[in-house]
């Protein structure tokens, strides 16, 4: 073994072994929330769904209103009687003098600017949704929120679910399946209930508080990305500039997957042209597709795969800009 091998090995060992069991925050093993799809499972379960729906439709309708607070009807704002969340943002609001979110390269710097006391993660993130700017977030935090409008902004789980249903228009994503909130950040699993019981997670969305300072518990939550595991969106890279025709690729683990890619602007409008579906499958298999893009500003690339039990069984997002 050479000196450089030894140096790399010992440095990694020293860094890794600085933490021990007692340093980890208390946590239980995650409970089952995803559903393995064997080759025979989709048709079998699809038939089960049809039978179950036919037999129990009346019961389901009667019980719909009794569903828990994390379940929303497609396109509806969670915990709110207002219209779809994207229409409730105070777009065009006058700049707020007390907000200190500088703009760099035409993009809003947020969450960890030097003028915004740095949270523990010491990072910048690009706001994707629901607030298109800090002014909008500040408007809700100081005016609209206290007046009772759209209280779902205060809850990362509700915001994540509203992103899937209201912004991405994924009507089959109806449930929050996991929730990890740590300080200024949240990782929220969204998906749907399986007919056989249990939950299926389609994506884990990453959100941060859209605040000018750390510890601002009144600030609303903002989606900034997704945590990809078995379905990844690797290119374009986070917040990279997009050319008129964009190459989108990643990796997928699954059976008979059918990947669809679209690009949306911050208003939720699809700004990508016709894109062929990408057949894929296997373990950690690469996939790629070329996507024509006509929008401008901050854009969200979304890739999803499904068709067995639901249209959107796995999805991933990536923030980019023109």
């Amino acid at each position, binding site marked *: 073994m050479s000196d450089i091998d030894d140096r790399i090995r010992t440095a990694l060992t020293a860094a890794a072994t600085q933490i021990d069991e007692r340093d980890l925050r208390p946590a239980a093993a995650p409970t089952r929330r995803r559903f393995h799809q064997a080759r025979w499972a989709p048709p079998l379960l699809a038939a089960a769904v049809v039978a179950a729906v036919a037999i129990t439709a009346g019961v389901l309708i009667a019980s719909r209103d009794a569903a828990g607070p994390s379940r929303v009807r497609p396109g509806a704002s969670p915990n709110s009687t207002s219209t779809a969340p994207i229409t409730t943002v105070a777009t065009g609001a006058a700049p707020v003098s007390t907000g200190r979110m500088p703009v760099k390269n035409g993009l809003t710097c947020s969450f960890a600017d030097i003028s915004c006391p740095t949270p523990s993660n010491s990072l910048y993130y690009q706001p994707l949704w629901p607030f298109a700017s800090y002014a909008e977030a500040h408007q809700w935090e100081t005016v609209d929120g206290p007046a009772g409008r759209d209280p779902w902004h205060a809850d990362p789980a509700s915001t994540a679910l509203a992103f899937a249903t209201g912004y991405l228009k994924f009507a089959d994503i109806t449930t929050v399946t996991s929730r990890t909130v740590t300080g200024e950040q949240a990782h929220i699993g969204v998906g749907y209930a399986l007919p056989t019981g249990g939950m299926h997670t389609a994506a*884990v969305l990453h959100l941060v508080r859209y605040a000018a300072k750390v510890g601002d518990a009144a600030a609303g939550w903002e989606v900034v990305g997704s945590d990809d595991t078995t379905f990844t969106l690797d290119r374009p890279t986070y917040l990279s500039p997009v050319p008129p025709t964009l190459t989108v690729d990643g990796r997928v683990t699954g059976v008979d997957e059918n990947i669809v890619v679209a690009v949306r602007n911050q208003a939720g409008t699809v700004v990508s042209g016709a894109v062929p579906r990408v057949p894929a499958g296997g373990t950690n298999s690469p996939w790629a597709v070329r996507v024509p893009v006509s929008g401008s500003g901050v854009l969200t690339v979304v890739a999803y795969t499904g068709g067995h039990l639901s249209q959107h069984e796995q999805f991933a997002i990536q923030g980019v800009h023109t």
Partner: protein
Amino acid sequence: MIAGADSAVGVESLFRTHRLAMVRLALLLVDDRETAEDVAQEAFAALHRRWNALSSDAAAVAYLRTCVVNGSRSILRRRRTARLHATTANDVVTVPAADGPALLGEEHREVLAALRRLPARQREVLVLRYWSELTESQIAQTLGISVGAVKSSASRGRDAIAAQLEGQQR
């Protein structure tokens, strides 16, 4: 399917025995403990989905490792862009090395700093090789790349670190 264990029991068992290892692996890829714990937690959650396709504990651990690497890469993508948008001297974002870098010797800090400057793929290969002690074929399987790509990434990453360390000594 892992014999004699349903996913709840199996994941719970693996969580007890491998959580620290997965957090440590993530820590070497994302550099802060809080995020590393999140990444590891998501990996164990994903394990439920693949449980019936995993033939042994070893296969489950290999799958966990892949999830940790992919999850870490997802985090790094956002960080990389964040740094690109820090345009002034005052905006320089300092992501801490592993937790408590001050506790590490100078020689380790230099190596870790050089490691962080590598492309993601090279860093992943070196971490899996030198920390996880995986073979080239195991690394290839974990990352979903060829053995040849593992070899070239390891060689380039190792050479780049050596060059950086050599440059610092001049």
